[in-house]
């Protein structure tokens, strides 16, 4: 177990990167605390897997350093880093039995047979494959194979970190939930540092203590699920997390007021002069319909999703969503929307701006 530090890390798959666009991973500094469960969240192709492979040593970064407990491991091979990693695509050794598969990482490290047998048994119980230990891995279903891969990742108890690269993509939904719970309890029990890559926000938010959101090769925010929800640091986090995502409206900011197409919207704090293109972001949870105040909207659709209703509307040509509770009546003549001032975030060039004074939080 170790604290993992990334210093000025950047990576490009090109031999001679020129512009920032050439980098799959733009320069970042990040600390992974020992024993925490992290989710690495982002859309496909944003550099999540690259970052993971750099930590495990499968990819060598173009620039920067990786430290394990303060020791430079940038040049260390995978074997020396003592890291377990599970891939999206199930990897099993077809010619071996399930038992041999699970024992493989321990055997390669020359562990004592009695210890190996005990660990294999424990892991087999964890993944629910005790009765299949003797059979050949060839011909198993994709989720059984992936369970074996997970098992191989968990069989070594003394690893520095456990990395998961979208491991549950091929698994059945009910099994997915079960395995995720298993991983979580495993984390509670042994306290490994875990990094879990996913593009599914529910998975990220339920699994992790802290979520690292990546966008376009950059880490845009690191925070608890609540922080990501309330104060998205980047517009990407705003609309990627939440269902539906954050509403974003172009606005001009003047002091504690924003103007959307000339109509004023009260803000939770006072802002200084802002450069670049400014927008306000409000979660659908903090918007409500009104008859006589706020911004004019045209409701185009109402979706009843059970616990609440989602109102799809347009406001000055921008699509916005409003959440209404189940019992709430929607007045036929409501043509305006009001935002809760404390939960209106201001973005300049896509990045969150803190109010100069009178913070909303």
């Amino acid at each position, binding site marked *: 177990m170790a604290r993992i530090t990334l210093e000025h890390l950047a990576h490009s798959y090109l031999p001679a990167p020129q512009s920032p666009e050439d980098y799959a991973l733009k320069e970042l500094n990040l600390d992974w605390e020992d024993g925490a469960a992290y989710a690495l969240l982002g859309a496909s192709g944003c550099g999540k897997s690259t970052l993971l*492979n750099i930590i*495990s*040593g*499968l990819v060598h970064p173009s620039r920067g350093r990786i430290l394990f407990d303060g020791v430079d491991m940038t040049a260390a*091979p*995978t*074997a020396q880093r003592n*890291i*377990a*990693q599970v*891939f*999206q*695509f199930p*990897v099993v*050794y*077809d*010619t*071996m039995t399930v038992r041999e598969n699970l024992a*493989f*990482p321990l055997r*390669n*490290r020359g562990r004592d047979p009695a210890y190996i047998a005990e660990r294999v048994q424990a892991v087999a119980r964890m993944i629910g494959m005790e009765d299949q230990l003797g059979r050949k891995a*060839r*011909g198993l279903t994709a989720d059984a194979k992936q369970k074996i*891969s997970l098992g*191989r*990742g968990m069989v070594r108890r003394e690893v520095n970190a456990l990395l998961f690269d979208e491991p549950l993509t091929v698994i059945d939904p009910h099994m997915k939930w079960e395995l995720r719970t298993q991983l979580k309890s495993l984390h509670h029990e042994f306290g490994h540092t875990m990094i879990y890559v996913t593009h599914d926000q529910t998975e990220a938010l339920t699994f992790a203590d802290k979520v690292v959101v990546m966008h376009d090769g950059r880490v845009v925010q690191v925070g608890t699920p609540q922080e990501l929800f309330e104060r998205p640091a980047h517009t990407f986090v705003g609309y990627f997390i939440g269902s539906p995502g954050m509403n974003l409206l172009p606005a001009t900011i003047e002091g504690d007021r924003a103007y959307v197409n000339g109509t004023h919207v009260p803000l939770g704090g006072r802002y200084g002069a802002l450069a670049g293109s400014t927008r306000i972001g409000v979660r659908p949870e903090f918007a409500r319909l009104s008859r006589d105040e706020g911004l004019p909207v045209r409701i185009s659709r109402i979706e009843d999703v059970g616990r609440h209703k989602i109102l799809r509307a347009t406001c000055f040509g921008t699509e916005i969503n409003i959440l209404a509770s189940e019992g709430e009546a929607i007045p036929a003549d409501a043509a305006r929307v009001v935002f809760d001032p404390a939960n209106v975030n201001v973005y300049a060039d896509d990045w969150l701006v803190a109010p100069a004074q009178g913070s909303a939080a």
Partner: protein
Amino acid sequence: MEKTVNHKAWFLVLPVLVLVAFSAVIPLMTVVNYSVQDTFGQNQFFWAGLEWFRETLESERMWDALGRQLVFSGIILAIEVPLGILVALSMPRKGAWASICLVLMALPLLIPWNVVGTIWQIFGREDIGLLGYTLNALGVDYNYTQGFFAAWTTVIVMDVWHWTSLVALLAYAGLQSIPNAYYQAARIDQASRWAVFRHIELPKMQGVLMIAVLLRFMDSFMIYTEPFVVTGGGPGNATTFLSIDLVKMALGQFDLGPAAAFSLMYFLVILLVSYVFYTVMVNMEKREGK
């Protein structure tokens, strides 16, 4: 669904039937015809029954040729398959060099058999051949027209040179189909190079290797042109393989009856071996798909 009955449709099959009849059935039947008759010329034939088959099975000459044939096929398989795998493993996986390697590997396969024979025939000559001259200059007594060992070595090295590429290309295709995650997982699991080969690469290459072995066995079992051009089956009968023997018998001695019986049995052996290989391969795929 109601089946439409229209016997005119048979006419559509006719061209294929005619083609197959002329290219395979009729020539084969001619051979069958020769194999059960005897002739003394003037196109007069006498019924001989299974006499030629019995004679062939009892002839020491045929068994010797079969023995040489099996030893030859065994040796070239034992060399070409491991060597081909080794070559495939050391070829680059991507980039410009991968393409260059592929083209270089494919070159020997594109050379006609008799040209390969001629190349080695000249290459090995002790008066003007680079190989033969050099070896003799180094004091090695190398002459494939006289030495038993030299003749065999030449024929085997020639075949290895000509066909290892095929095994290598097939093995390479098998290797290319392995997802990168397997290698990454193996690195995480700290697997040794041997374990990666034994548990990842070899199982994934199994299918193509079976095909390679089958192709190489069939081809080497029927080999004719190259040894014929280089050694002509000599010295003595040292490199007289089955097909060389067969041609000697049919065209050299004009023993049509025994030669026909011989070739029919030769054909059946190849058919049998192919069938066994095919069954094994299909069973393997089934096991994999289970």
